[in-house]
């Protein structure tokens, strides 16, 4: 936590803090670190689940490809009576897989955004440990500027701007409103050739 400039974590002290070591800054850093650990754990668990899903997806894609080849290899008298029905089924599978390709990418985007949140928590934990720094208004401005540079998506930047304008966190989704969702949906898949 706040005992080292290099690292915020002194785990032994966290278990049995000496009374003289107790500071509000240390507790804030500890709490931020707890949030980070919870997020890390949840993300690791989700990653495993999503990786399993992707393996299933890949297996399904392979099976579909094999099925297509097998149908094509059937002698005409066997293929023709079932071909149309099988092709319709394969087309339906293909549509579902296309939707899955888009959905998987949203998970990837989520992981990226949570990575930025995690980095922000770490930065804040280190920041509050330096009392002099934490008491200087311009240092907070620098911290916010540094965190804003992390953001890669328009949605992250919009949320940041709303918060900077004083909108309370629970009200951000409503403040961003439907326009926010519509704009995000419109940007997805946007293609611009130069």
């Amino acid at each position, binding site marked *: 936590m706040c005992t080292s400039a290099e690292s915020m974590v002194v785990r032994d002290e966290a278990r049995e803090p000496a009374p003289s070591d107790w500071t509000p800054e240390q507790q804030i850093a500890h709490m931020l670190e707890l949030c980070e650990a919870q997020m890390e754990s949840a993300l690791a668990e989700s990653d495993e689940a*999503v*990786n399993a899903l*992707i393996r299933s*997806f*890949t297996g399904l*894609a392979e099976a579909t490809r094999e099925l297509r080849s097998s149908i094509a290899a059937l002698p005409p008298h066997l293929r023709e009576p079932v071909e149309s029905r099988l092709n319709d089924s394969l087309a339906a599978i*293909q549509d579902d*897989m*296309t939707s899955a*390709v*888009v959905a*998987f*990418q*949203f*998970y*990837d*985007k989520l*992981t*990226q955004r949570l990575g930025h949140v995690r980095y922000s928590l770490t930065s804040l934990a280190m920041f509050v440990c330096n009392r002099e720094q934490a008491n200087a208004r311009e240092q907070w401005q620098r911290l916010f500027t540094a965190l804003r540079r992390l953001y*890669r*998506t*328009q949605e992250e*930047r919009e949320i940041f701007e709303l918060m900077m304008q004083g909108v309370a966190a629970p009200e951000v989704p409503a403040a961003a409103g439907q326009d926010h969702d519509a704009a995000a949906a419109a*940007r*997805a*898949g*946007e*293609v*611009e*050739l*130069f």
Partner: protein
Amino acid sequence: MPSAASHVILAVDDSASMRQMVRYTLESAGYSVVQAADGVEALELARTRSVDLVLTDVNMPRMDGLTLVRELRALETYKFTPMLVLTTESGQEMKQRGKQAGATGWIVKPFHPDQLLATIAKLI
């Protein structure tokens, strides 16, 4: 006219799941796909074999996508190769940087498979 099967696409992304989705989409359309997890790996690959199109993410460790595009454009063999950037970045400033680096186009993630394939079909 050459078929998709004769075209090789280099897909670059540090996310394994993204690489998987891109690979599935492109292979379903008959393209051959080679993959790299960052710009350094992609540059090495591109130097050892020829590819017909590069599809790269921007934010990656070791070497980002825009540097990769710039490095590839400096090579004689990749002067005119289409290079698409596929990224969550949608700001005009970044797009402008991509254009200056030599990218052919910009696609905002998440991509829709049909749109991606239609764009690639226009370029190769």
